[in-house]
């Protein structure tokens, strides 16, 4: 059966060829980040060199420069502080909010939940003008704390929606049993529902953090002082002197900032998808 074998080989080749195409398409820019960040400048800025590999030995000079001569560590720290504060605000509001919408308010809860989720679709590029006035009114212009105030406007709707799904999936009998045994509503929420929803809460923590790292528009609008920038804004806009782009440093910074987000996404992808499709897929 030589013909069948040939067809099989052709089919397999085209299959793996297509997979390879998608891999290159998706991952090449990141490969490019890695290569650029470890290349010496002499190697980078020479159009006759083969760009895909090291013509000179790899070097850590860009990473040294990034950590020692730029505000990169400040940006890292800023992003960490912003992420932690926003996560705290989001948890304190979204966990009880979602529990209430899922359990307490009955039919109105569903409508309210959809209403809150829809605010997630109101784009930053519509709100940045009035919000920049609000930020100025609070005396927070050009300060990273403005982002701590503003970021919950999209993390709260998103996480409330995500957690609503988690609380709804919990068996209500456990809380009812606790209440029959003399627990207050608050006690049933804190001692029964929260521990059971911990996986969902962990998901929310991870996604709040990654959402704050990914945000760009508000940071760009509110912050121009270099030492107040979060890492995404700092790397994208602050490693340029006049017309000169410090490509090695920019790519090194982008690489460092991308890795944690990429890992988090891959670990929590399935929960994220069932969250945004509202459990349309069981």
């Amino acid at each position, binding site marked *: 059966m030589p013909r069948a074998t040939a067809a099989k080989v052709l089919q397999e080749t085209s299959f793996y060829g297509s997979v390879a195409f998608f891999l290159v398409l998706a*991952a090449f820019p990141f490969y*490019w980040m890695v290569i650029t960040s470890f290349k010496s400048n002499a190697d980078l800025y020479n159009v006759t060199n083969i760009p895909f590999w090291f013509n000179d030995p790899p070097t850590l000079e860009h990473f040294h420069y990034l950590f020692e001569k730029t505000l990169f560590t400040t940006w890292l720290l800023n992003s960490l502080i912003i992420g932690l504060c926003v996560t705290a605000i989001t948890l304190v509001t979204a966990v009880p909010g979602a529990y*209430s919408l899922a359990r307490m*308010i009955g039919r109105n809860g569903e409508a309210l939940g959809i209403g809150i989720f829809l605010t997630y679709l109101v784009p930053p590029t519509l*709100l940045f003008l009035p919000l920049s006035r*609000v930020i100025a009114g609070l005396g927070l212009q050009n300060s990273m704390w403005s982002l701590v105030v503003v970021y919950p406007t999209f993390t709260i709707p998103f996480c409330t929606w995500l957690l609503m799904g988690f609380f709804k999936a919990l068996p209500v009998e456990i809380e009812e049993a606790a209440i029959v045994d003399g627990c207050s509503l608050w006690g049933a929420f804190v001692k029964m529902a929260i521990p059971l929803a911990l996986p969902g809460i962990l998901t929310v923590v991870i996604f709040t953090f990654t959402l704050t790292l990914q945000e760009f528009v508000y940071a*760009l609008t509110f912050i121009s002082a270099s030492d107040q920038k979060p890492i995404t804004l700092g790397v994208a806009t602050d490693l340029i002197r006049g017309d000169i782009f410090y490509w090695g440093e920019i790519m090194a910074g*982008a690489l460092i900032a991308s890795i944690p987000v990429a890992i988090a996404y891959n670990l929590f992808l399935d929960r994220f998808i069932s969250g945004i499709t509202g459990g349309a897929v069981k």
Partner: protein
Amino acid sequence: MVAIADSVPKPAARFRFILDRRDVFGSILVAPAILYVLLLVGVPFLMAVYYSLSAYTIYDPSWRFVGLSNFVDIVENPEFRHTLYNTFIFTFGSQFLGLVLGKFGALLLLRPFPGRKIVRALIILPWAVPIALATVAWQWMFDSLYSVINWTLIALGIVSRSDAPNWLGNPHLAMLSVIVVNAWRFFPFAIVIFLAGITAVPQDVLDAATVDGAGFWRRNYQIIMPMILPIVAIGLIFGIVFTFTDLSIVFLMTMGGPVGATSVLAFSGFQTGINSGDVSHGAAISLFMLPVLFVVVVVMLRFIRRREI
């Protein structure tokens, strides 16, 4: 005696009693979330609407009402009409490209093969990584002198060094570039959406169709596609909303240039409202996103309702 004395509730006990009513307790729990969203999304939204109807600039912060004159100003401006046109091209071009890539990618990833998990993890990257950082990497790949894409084209003998394309300097190529980058950013999202939908189609339905004589294409387009339509629609809605209102790709790659060829609504609103300080006109430009968002939200609500029936 003791029983009578105890039957008079202490204030603390009455407070506890109120907290044990489900509706009251529920309202207290949900209040912070709703207040936050009302104060920092609802109120600013109304402010944006009012700005667009006023003569507000950062140099003259008056709230003088001027009616629709800001809208008349911007609609009469040919640059703005071009921006509006660009926004549609940018949005639908990149969504179309992203969906096509997403569908094919999902079909590939449906089949088990060695290393599929790693392949999936790598393919998710464009969507997971902060878009501003990925955009900077693309900007470097499109560099006018050291572009790796041009290097490859030259090495393959497709173009010569003297007439290598200047990706971000030519109006048409610049639009193509921002569309490609945005499609690149969204296609992994489309893949996971398609995958989630396709794996949710019950196998017995497919088996029944196969027994009844439906071939690959027929199963694909008459059974799978209609069944996954709701979830694909939700994914598409996200894509449209986030592309139609996106600022970062255009801002970082082209700054709306060359000569406004890639200027989109969000970018134009930013330039006018923030950089030039003309808040009222900036707000009016941004509000042109609303009709599209409104349509999208109505469609989304319909799909969410249908899911509940």
